[in-house]
């Protein structure tokens, strides 16, 4: 299960809406071992595409080094689908390589944005419940 604050859900959805019809992407970092998303990091989609996203490799390097310095990990890796369901595509699955991350998909294809979370490990997708909280206990 992904437990995430309302504020972070709103920030992710707002980013997805702002970049629609292109796919939006980013990370929420959190303390290593905590499984708690805390620090919202909006990333550039280097592809600027409605059907594909890729973190800019130089930006990713800086962000990952910054997380390392803070003893953080990417707790959430999110991106949007802008014309299809919030379900991982074959491309999403083939690239997924953070075994401990929650892969969040937002779909902006509908009036009410879908917000769903998955574990993706060795090509196997497992959807998980999302618990939205006002604050972490």
């Amino acid at each position, binding site marked *: 299960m992904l437990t995430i604050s309302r504020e972070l859900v709103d920030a992710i959805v707002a980013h997805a809406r702002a970049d629609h019809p292109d796919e939006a992407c980013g990370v929420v970092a959190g303390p290593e071992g905590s499984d708690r998303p805390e620090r919202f990091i909006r990333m550039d989609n280097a592809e600027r595409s409605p059907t594909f996203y890729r973190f800019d*490799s130089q930006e990713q390097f800086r962000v990952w080094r910054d997380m390392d310095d803070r003893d953080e990990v990417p707790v959430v890796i999110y991106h949007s689908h802008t014309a299809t369901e919030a379900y991982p595509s074959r491309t999403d699955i083939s690239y997924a390589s953070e075994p401990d991350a929650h892969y969040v998909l937002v779909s902006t294809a509908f009036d009410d944005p879908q917000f769903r979370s998955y574990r993706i490990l060795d090509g196997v997708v497992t959807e998980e419940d999302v618990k939205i909280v006002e604050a972490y206990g």
Partner: protein
Amino acid sequence: MAIEVRIPTILRSYTGGAKAVDASGATLDELIGDLEARHPGLKERLVDDSGLRRFVNVYLNDEDVRFLGGLGTPVADGDTVTVLPAVAGGAR
């Protein structure tokens, strides 16, 4: 001195869980060959017949090697090579 290679979580099964390992070589290609000798299986996760796999980013110090010389990029003692999984995907 050697070249420090930083290994992402997903590939640490090849390094006995180590976050960073040492290797040597004059180019990135040689370095990856040396890594393979020390940690069998790692090379296949980094390169294929056409060069660096698109699923990984490799950095020399803080520069993506795709913007340097790819596998031919010269490396030297004291350098740090970082491997990160590329983060990408999309609806298609």
